[in-house]
């Protein structure tokens, strides 16, 4: 229940007495006085909508909104040509603009959008940037190979590539035992979910960066991808020296299939913008940037979602499941799930959207 004071302060204003149209001498004033009742009704409806109090609107008001909007818009067009009353013109311009925001405003709420987004919008956006995904994939594979080859030729590269917080015991010359330990876990769950949350906000930051940098014609996104994958290549080489590459791949795949997929999508999304801005075709650069930006932003929302999943996999599943086949099973099924979600069920997704 609302306190009465609120109603008087923020509620409807007292209804003004009907204007005396006959008393007005100027034609433009008569024009205004004849219509201002409708304008004020429109203003009241729009004000309510802006406050988000849709429930308070009667059916009549909702039905009247488009008609009232068009009346006000045509009043504005007429008033511009016949009236010099600056205050009325200003009022009408503001009113038509406000009504325009409501009439042509977003029709769906946040949750309706989310449902549609998860039920097809996201996977469609991902499919639409397939070319960039292919390029990003090629770049990432190349980055991994480059990392491997560089370290194979000169071990010093390992220290240049791998950040120091990864290079604790996992350094060239480490024994097989040490490397195995790095892959294992003692099996307790203490602190894991906090670790997951930390990983998530860290990874989400990195992938948003990969996306945001795509704005500069995609080149920084590519560099970020190459660098990250070169680290992976270097680590793969390290574990290979002790014959542990399969175990390492299994250890990584638990969350890696999700996380690397997410980074791939983030880089592709960034590159999508960059590519469209560099080669806009027949569109203007601005339109191309806006179109691709909106599409890429949807992909990015999916990336953040994947990273949440990846963080939980990394901290729980990877640390608790230590057998190599089981790890592969988890990673593989996650990968299959994402691929199915994004690329299969195309027809049903389309139908859902329309």
């Amino acid at each position, binding site marked *: 229940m609302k306190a009465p004071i609120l109603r008087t302060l923020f509620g409807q204003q007292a209804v003004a007495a009907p204007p005396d149209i006959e008393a007005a*001498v100027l034609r*433009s004033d008569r024009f205004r006085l004849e219509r201002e009742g409708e304008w004020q009704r429109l203003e009241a409806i729009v004000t309510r909508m802006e406050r988000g109090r849709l429930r308070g609107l009667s059916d009549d008001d909702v039905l009247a909104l488009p008609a009232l909007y068009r009346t006000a818009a045509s009043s504005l*067009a007429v008033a511009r040509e016949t009236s010099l009353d600056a205050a009325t013109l*200003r009022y009408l311009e503001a009113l038509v*603009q406000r009504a325009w925001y409501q009439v*042509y405003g977003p*029709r769906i709420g946040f949750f309706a959008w989310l449902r549609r987004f998860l039920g097809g919008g996201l996977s469609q956006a991902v499919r639409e940037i397939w070319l960039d995904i292919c390029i990003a994939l090629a770049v990432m594979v190349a980055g991994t190979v480059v990392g491997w080859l560089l370290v194979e030729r000169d071990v010093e590269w390992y220290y240049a590539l791998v950040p120091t917080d990864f290079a604790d015991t996992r350094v060239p010359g480490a024994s097989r035992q040490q490397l195995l330990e790095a892959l294992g876990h003692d099996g307790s769950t203490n602190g894991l979910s906090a670790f997951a949350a930390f990983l998530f906000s860290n990874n989400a930051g990195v992938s948003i960066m990969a996306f945001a940098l795509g704005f500069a014609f995609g080149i920084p996104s590519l560099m970020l991808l190459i660098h990250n994958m070169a680290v992976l290549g270097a680590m793969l080489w390290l574990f290979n020296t002790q014959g542990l590459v399969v175990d390492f791949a299994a250890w990584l795949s638990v969350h890696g299939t999700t996380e690397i997929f997410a980074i791939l999508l983030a880089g592709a999304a960034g590159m999508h913008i960059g590519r469209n801005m560099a080669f806009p075709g027949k569109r203007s650069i601005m339109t191309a940037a806006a179109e691709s930006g909106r599409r890429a*932003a949807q992909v990015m929302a999916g990336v953040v979602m994947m990273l949440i999943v990846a963080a939980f996999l990394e901290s729980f599943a990877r640390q608790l499941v230590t057998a190599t086949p089981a790890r592969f099973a988890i990673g593989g099924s996650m990968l299959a799930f994402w691929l199915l979600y994004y690329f299969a069920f195309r027809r049903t997704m389309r139908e859902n959207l329309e």
Partner: protein
Amino acid sequence: MSAGTAPWIARQQKRRRDVVTPEGIALPFTVAGRGARFGALLLDFIILYVGMLIFLFLAMYIASGAGELLDDKKMSGPVEMIVVIFFVGMFLARYGYFMFFELGPRGATPGKRVAGIRVAARDGGRLTPSAVLARNLLRDIEIFLPLVFILTAQSGEGGAAAIAATLWFAIFMLFPFFNRDAMRAGDLIAGTWVVEAPKAKLLETITTAEAAAGRSSVADVAYRFSDAELSVYGEYELQTLEKVLRDDIPTAMVNVHEAICRKIGWNPGAGDERAFLEAFYAQLRAKLEGDMRFGKRKKDKFS
């Protein structure tokens, strides 16, 4: 009445953009000033970080209580829970705050609302959720990264590479200064812009029959102006006079009254300024609007 167009009006005109609605009406939008946007951003961050701090203190308070209760050196379940909520909450707050409010019916965060501005689609279409998503995802490289780089470059640790990176990120930060519509990189990507949110009340009509006929309520006279006397002024002066009448400041009215009398060669009296000005306004407007219907417009006194 001032001569020519006032500089602030010229500036205002520079920021006006017409968007044609589906009804064929050209709606004027005013691109929000960079100062207003910066102020709005500052306010939003203050709200956001004060909120986060309160949240942090609350979390710490609860965590310390839970820690004492369990008396455990390791991270206990409840504490861990709080840490998780804290991290995810921070992330969601940073991105969710802007998205939630900009998707609302006002298209503005609380800071923008205070500054009187809002987000709109640049092409006159709908402001879609994906556009709002896109414009907010870029905020990190526009504000936080440049700041980080500028701060580290000052200490001179990174050398030439850090300076180059700083310059590179400064481009993003200064992006709004390099285009006419004051768009930041996020706006460019999303196809949005930030415009002034219009707020105007319907004011009273000031031309009553009495004033237009020229009858004064104080002095027992009727002001009638000849065509020649009315044709010294144009639309700009008319609207300035309208503002003077609406503001209703006695000293201003005395001055304007005097100026008009001097211009049309009348002998200014005293005490009946408002009635005189109302009569002059009504008759000038009647004349100008009459001309307008015949397609003749007089912009100001010089034309």
